[in-house]
């Protein structure tokens, strides 16, 4: 932890000139983004604007076409000719929560949270299980430890997925529309866990459709459209007094829903 002490003023995440194409279609058109330790950044924008792709480039689930991504000192260049080892190093610091939870259906809840601790951090099963139980307690699901994911509600599955990601002690958490697949009331329990994480000082990038979360919990909001960041700034300012016409249109459209 000494190379990344709390007084480190370098950004935890630095994205420079990021471009990404799928075939001839350019999804990200030169994105620059830096995220400081402890910051909570919400990315909003219409579907197809490239916000999920940007998030997935941060932990290299998508390779990018040009530019660089740096997380906690590990830099990855375009079309990652980078070794598996570099990727592993980068991902070690990054936790990710998916829209569709992606829990492992054949493992019980405890194994879901423990397995990567054993394989990636080299913890013993007992150590891993102990840590998993702490985290499951924190998300309010200690009683589900021996259940299989299919027996849990969507909201519970997503909270387990958050515990699974936290179990590797990441420096930053990425959330890819974590409540979009959930009924509103189940989404609320997930948002509550995220809010708690935010209050605990976790660095977070959250792609979301939840305008309240963007406005109330995050420090900074990015609005994306057509592969570009069209507006960004402190949450309240962006949400209440957007500067560009497109941002105004988008915000009024989602608010009318």
């Amino acid at each position, binding site marked *: 932890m000494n190379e990344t002490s709390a007084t480190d003023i370098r950004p935890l995440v630095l994205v420079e000139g990021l471009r990404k194409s799928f075939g001839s279609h350019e999804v990200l058109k030169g994105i620059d983004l830096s995220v400081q330790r402890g910051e909570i950044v919400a990315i909003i924008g219409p579907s197809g604007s490239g916000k999920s792709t940007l998030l997935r480039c941060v932990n290299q689930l998508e390779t990018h076409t040009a530019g660089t991504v740096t997380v906690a000192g590990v830099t990855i260049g375009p079309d990652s000719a980078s070794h598996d080892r570099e990727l592993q190093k980068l*991902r070690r610091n990054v936790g990710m929560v998916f829209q*569709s939870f992606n829990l*492992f259906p054949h493992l019980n809840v405890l194994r879901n949270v423990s397995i990567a601790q054993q394989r990636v951090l080299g913890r013993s099963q007992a150590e891993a299980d102990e840590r998993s139980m702490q985290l499951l307690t924190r998300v309010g699901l200690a009683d589900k430890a021996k259940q299989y994911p299919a027996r849990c509600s969507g909201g519970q599955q997503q909270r387990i997925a958050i515990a699974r990601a936290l179990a590797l002690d990441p420096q930053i958490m990425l959330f890819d529309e974590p409540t979009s697949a959930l009924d509103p009331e189940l989404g609320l329990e997930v948002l509550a866990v995220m809010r708690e994480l935010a209050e605990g000082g976790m660095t977070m990038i959250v792609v979301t459709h939840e305008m309240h979360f963007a406005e109330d919990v995050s420090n900074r909001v990015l609005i994306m459209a057509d592969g570009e960041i069209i507006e960004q700034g402190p949450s309240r300012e962006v949400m209440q007094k957007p500067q560009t016409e497109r941002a105004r249109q988008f915000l009024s459209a989602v608010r009318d829903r």
Partner: protein
Amino acid sequence: MLDILGNLVTGVPMTLFLTFGALLVGVILGIPICMARRSHHPVLSNLAAAVIVAIRSIPPLVWLFLIYFGLGSGILRLSPLVAALGGLGLITAVNMAEIYRGSLAAIHAGQWEASQALGLPRWSRLVEIIGPQVARISLPAVATYAIGLLKDTAVASIIGVPELAFKGTYLSQQTFKGLEIFAAVGFLYIAMSLPIAWVSRLVDARIRQRVAQ
């Protein structure tokens, strides 16, 4: 009729041994074939595809003949049983590879992504995350295949493996009661396939109950 049945039943263990032996060969050998078929290396994946098509387009009996009489005439002498296990195992292996491939395609991309995002090493992703799910999805298809294979093992009688159909042929030559004998042989094959179907449904239901989505 009872003494006919009693006589035929002595061929049942060999039929079951052939079935499960070839299945075991195929279930294991199918894994590398499937991995080759899905490889990003174009030469390897095309080669695997060609092998799969070639093996499937030639009838089982022809494979047994190729191995037993073809190789056996001066290249590699094998016992009928080994030749039959080899031939049926080979055919089973390419079919298993295709079953696995279908199951892999049915696994949600999020499972790969989640295990990557967690930074799980490659072996763990394959063995602990994807492999068990492929096995679970493949199970019903493998069971159906096993029942088909049970019947396909009858061809081994033609190269002289003393299994059920062989006993039937032998007995009918001895007694000239062909109708009863072959009817009894057919009955025994059906009787053997029932428990396989039953066990597979039971196992499938149990897994489904646990991890149903």
